[in-house]
C-alpha cells in the first residue's frame, strides 16, 4: 500500500469531503495561500478558491463564533486553530455555545463543525505553543474529541468528523505531520468510539493516545525482549470512548497503564483509569497507572522539556513494576 504523511492524509480527507459536499468550507489564519505554517492545507485554495478556504484575521473567538453560526444554519465549517494552546481563546464559543446548542434547543438545532488543532511538546516551542489540552474539551458534554495516532487514523477520523452532526475537536500531534503510514487509495472512514488494538498481548494493557501510541509500542518492544507481553490499544476517539474494548483487554491482562500527553492531573488518563477501576476491579492484579505530562508549564530548555513527557523507557519501567507486583502497596 502507498505511504503518505499525516499532513497529506489530513489534506486528502478535507479535499475529498469538500468535493463531496459543497457546504464544507475552511476558515482560519493563513490557511489559503500559505496553507498553514505547517503546510498541511497546501493546494486546497487552488482547488476550492477563497470562498471556501478563507483566511481570517487573528481573531480566534470571532471566527470560532462565525463557524458556530454557519454550522447552525446549514454549512459544515472546518475551523483551523493554528496551535492547540489557542483553544483557550475560543473556549466560550466552543464550550458555552457550540457544545450546548443542540441540547438547549431540545434537539432542534445542530452544530456540525470541526475544530482541527494540534497538541504535543518537545518541539522547543515553550509554554504557550506546546500544550496538550484534550482533557479540557473532553470534559464538556456535547463535544466529540478525536486523537489520530497516524496518517491512517488522521484521514479516516477527519472524514467522519466532517460528516458528524456535532462539534468535533481533532487534536493532531504537531511532531507527527511528516510521519508516514500506509493509507489506502480507496475511500474509508473510521467510525468514532471504536478503539484499535495495535498489538496483542497477555500480561499488561497499554492504553495510549495520539503520539503516545508510538511510545507505548516502543515500550512493548522493550518489554517483549524481557518476556513481558504487552497489549497496546489506541482509543482513537476520547469522546466517545470505546470502553468495551478497553475493559475486555484489561479483564484479560489484569494490569493497565494509561498514557496521554496532557498533564498528569485531572486528565484523560485519570478518567480512563477510573472507569477501569469501576468496571474491572475484580479482574485487576495491580492499580491502574496514569502517565501524562508533568504538572508543570512546558519549559523551553531542551534539558528540562524532555523530562516532562512520558517515554518508552518510563512506560516500560512502570510496566515491569506492575508485572512484578511492586506497586500494589505503593505509598
Amino acid at each position, binding site marked *: 500500500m502507498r505511504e503518505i504523511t499525516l499532513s497529506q492524509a489530513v489534506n486528502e480527507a478535507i479535499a475529498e469531503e469538500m468535493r463531496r459536499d459543497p457546504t464544507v468550507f475552511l476558515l482560519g*489564519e*493563513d490557511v489559503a*495561500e*500559505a496553507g498553514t*505554517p505547517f503546510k498541511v492545507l497546501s493546494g486546497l485554495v487552488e482547488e476550492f478558491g477563497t470562498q471556501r478556504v478563507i*483566511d*481570517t*484575521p*487573528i*481573531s480566534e*473567538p*470571532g471566527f470560532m463564533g462565525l463557524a458556530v453560526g454557519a454550522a447552525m444554519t446549514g454549512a459544515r465549517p472546518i475551523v483551523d486553530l493554528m496551535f492547540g*494552546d*489557542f483553544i483557550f*481563546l475560543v473556549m466560550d464559543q466552543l464550550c458555552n455555545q457550540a457544545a450546548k446548542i443542540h441540547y438547549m434547543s431540545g434537539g432542534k438545532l445542530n452544530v456540525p463543525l470541526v475544530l482541527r488543532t494540534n497538541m504535543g511538546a518537545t*518541539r*522547543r*516551542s*515553550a*509554554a*504557550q*505553543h506546546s500544550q496538550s489540552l484534550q482533557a479540557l474539551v473532553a470534559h464538556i458534554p456535547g463535544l466529540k474529541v478525536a486523537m489520530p495516532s497516524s496518517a491512517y487514523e488522521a484521514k479516516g477520523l477527519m472524514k467522519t468528523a466532517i460528516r458528524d452532526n456535532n462539534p468535533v475537536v481533532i487534536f493532531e500531534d504537531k511532531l507527527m505531520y511528516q510521519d508516514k503510514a500506509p493509507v489506502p487509495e480507496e475511500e474509508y472512514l473510521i467510525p468514532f468510539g471504536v478503539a484499535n488494538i495495535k498489538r496483542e498481548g497477555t500480561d499488561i494493557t497499554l492504553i495510549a493516545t495520539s503520539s503516545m501510541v508510538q511510545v507505548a509500542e516502543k515500550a512493548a518492544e522493550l518489554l517483549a525482549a524481557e518476556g513481558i507481553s504487552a497489549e497496546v490499544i489506541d482509543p482513537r476517539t476520547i469522546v466517545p470512548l470505546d470502553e468495551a474494548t478497553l475493559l475486555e483487554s484489561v479483564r484479560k491482562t489484569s494490569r493497565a497503564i494509561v498514557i496521554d500527553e496532557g498533564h498528569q492531573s485531572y486528565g484523560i488518563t485519570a478518567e480512563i483509569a477510573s472507569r477501569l477501576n469501576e468496571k474491572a476491579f475484580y479482574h485487576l492484579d495491580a492499580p491502574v497507572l496514569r502517565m501524562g505530562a*508533568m*504538572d*508543570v*508549564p512546558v*519549559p*523551553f*530548555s*531542551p*534539558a*528540562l522539556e524532555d*523530562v*516532562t513527557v512520558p517515554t518508552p523507557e518510563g512506560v516500560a519501567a512502570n510496566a515491569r513494576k506492575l508485572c512484578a507486583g511492586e506497586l500494589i502497596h505503593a505509598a
Partner: protein
Amino acid sequence: MSPAKKTNSADYLRMYRQMVRIRTFEDNANQLYLSAKMPGLTHMYSGEEAVAVGICEALTDDDRITSTHRGHGHCVAKGADFKQMFCELLGKAEGYCRGKGGSMHIADQSHGNLGANAIVGGSMGIATGSALRAKLMGQDDVTVCFFGDGATAQGLLYEVMNMAALWKLPVIYACENNGYSEYTKTEEIAAGSITARAEAFGIEAHRIDGQDVLAVNELTQKLVARCRKGEGPFFIELETYRYHGHHVGDINRAYYRSKDEEKDWKENRDPIIRFRSWLVEQGIASEEEIEAMNAEVEKDAAEAVAYAEAAPYPDVSEVDMHVYAA
C-alpha cells in the same frame, strides 16, 4: 530628520548604539538558529529597531513595557544584557528566565520588561493592568504595550482600550505596523484605519514613521510626560518593516511579498543607516567613531554568544521549580 539639539549628543549616541545592538543581536541569533545551535522558534526584529529604541529611550527603568513574540528588540532597548539574553535563547541556566521561557517569553524584571508573549495580543490586558496599578497606587510610571498590526484583530484590545480611556490610565499602545501579519498583508486582515480604532474610544492617536528614531523618541517623550500628568492613555501606530521572514524558518517569501519591496525598505529607509548619516552630518560623530562603536558592539555580541554556548543547562531538578510562588 530635524536638526540636533546641542546638549543631546550623549542621548543620540546611545540611541544609535542601542539600534546597532539590536541588529547585531539578531544577526547572531539568526546565525545560531541557522547553525542549529538554537532550539525552537524565533522571530527577528531587524528593521524595526527605531521603534523599540525611540520608545524605550523615552522611558526609565521604573516604566514598564509588555513585548511580543518578536521581542528581542524590546528587551535590548529596555536595557537587557546580551549574556543573559543569549543564555535564555539557548535554554541555559543563566538566562533571564533560567531557560524556562526562551525567545518567545523573555522577560527582564530588572528593567521593567514584563515579558515577551507567544499569544498574539496576549499582553494587552497585562499592560493596561500595570497602568491601572500605577494609578491606584499613586505611582507615576508609564506602561508601553507593544503589539503588531495583526494583533489589532484581537478583541481584547478593544475591551482594554475602553477601560483605559474611561479610567485615564497611563498606558501607551504602540502598534508596530510592519505591513504583515505572518504571510498576509495588513490590508487583507484589518478593515479601515488602525488609529481610528483608538480614536473611537476618545484616545489620542498618532501615526508616525517608525524608521525615524528621533521622531519616535520625541513623540514618545511628550506622551510619556503627559501620561505622568494623568492625560493618558495614548495610541501610536508606527510604520515599519521586518527584514527577515515572519519567523526564522520563513525563507521563501516571494509568494506574499516581493524582493523589490524588501530591497526598497532595506536600502532607502533603514533606520540605522539614516540615523548614522544624520549623526555624521550634524557633526555628532565621525565615521571612524561610528565604526569603532559598531565593532565594539559586535565584539560584545560575539563574547556573549561564546559565553552562552559554553554555559550549563539548568539542572533537571529545576523542572518543577517556579510552578507556584512561595
